[in-house]
């Protein structure tokens, strides 16, 4: 069943190469000021497109805004 995996196809994707230089986050002193580091997860599913776009944000005058 190794044929289920076709490395030629996957490596042919145009995004298969590094897309960004490697910058690093804030300085050491900034990290100390912010407390702990973001915990993160090994895998993060992108569910946002299904979940979030039920609305938008609108600021209406005078006061009764949506955000």
């Amino acid at each position, binding site marked *: 069943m190794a044929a289920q995996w076709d490395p030629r196809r996957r490596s042919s994707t*145009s995004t298969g190469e590094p897309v960004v230089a490697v910058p690093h986050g804030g300085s050491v002193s900034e990290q100390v000021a912010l407390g702990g580091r*973001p915990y993160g997860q090994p895998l993060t599913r992108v569910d946002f497109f299904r979940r979030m776009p039920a609305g938008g944000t609108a600021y209406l005058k005078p006061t009764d805004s949506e955000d």
Partner: protein
Amino acid sequence: MNLRSDWPDATAVHAALAPADELLSERRALYQLAAELFWRGAPKLPESRLDNPLFRFRVGEALADRIPFDSTADDDLDDVVTEVGGQLKIASGAGANDRLADTLRVVHSQSGAPGTPPRLLTQVDGESFREAIDIVEAGLARFREVSPALARDLLPHTALLVILDPATSNGLVSASSRLFPGLILIDKPTCPYDVAEALVHEGAHQKFFDLAITRDFLGSEVDDRVFSPSWSTARWPLEQVVAAFHAYALLAQFAESVTASGEIGQVGPSSLLPFARERETEIGRWLLGAEESLESDARWLLRTLLRADNAAIRTEESKNSVLDGRYALKPFVRMARMATGRMLLASPGHPPQLVWLNRNAAEVVEQFGEEPLSMSALGPEKVKILNGLVASELAYRVGEPR
């Protein structure tokens, strides 16, 4: 008067989650890979296309499994935009109203504003448009001068600004839609700080969107709790609450910069700057009571911006359910590697699956060679990652252990 603040610098908070350049590159990589899922033979798309709010709308709807992606649709806006200040694109051409009519109709419907959808102010409107552009340029300049780090942090996430004809804006001060990420609408401004504040307010939502599609923010389970702010009759679902909290945190930081510059008296009559910190705090306190519904990076953002303890944030670990055996990536899974070591996997389906992998998880995927991978060859941490790949329907068991 002591203008110093011990509130954290939101730009540093953002950078700890994702440096600005990295975040933009990863967001563009997501849209490129998604386009490749839906569009056979998709070319490498230019940044102008990957950032285009109309293109992002069509990709987003396809990722949400609501509207199939049409690779022949025309979403080009290049001939109806003008660049201001070397960075900010503004819809200006005579054809912009036609090109953005559907978008305005959707955003108007979402905004709850009364009446018919607004129309754009463009070059056709002559002196009125020229006045507006002058104020936008001045507002952009004030933003960059008064709060340069915040401007560098937020502006790259705004792809297009549209100015509404005040005769049709029906009381709308500023708006953005999650359906059209990167797009900001503002009423015709009366002063530079109308523009600067809208770029912070709505720009914060654009930043939030990009964080939420590349970092660990909101999962698939919907929390039914709603929040009613003390200043409004609105009732917000959790995802709206966290987005509003983030926007008020950035507005509060901007307010401090404007105050420090001595220009707080120049803000417009609809300004939220005087109330921003108080509202951020009110929303944040409510969110702390609901934080178990946020994923780990969103909890860290919340706690860090609120100056709460952020050192002990942990999420529930999923139970390991994979059986011993040999595993392979599913056919048609596509991947994009980031220079940071992160990786994005995408799989077609209904809905399509997109999953970000950190460096350790990416190493497991790298181990999927031409032969299936034996679970017994992995240590306990990597077995957890394999479990996540199987749960996300990106990998599957192909046979018994050898």
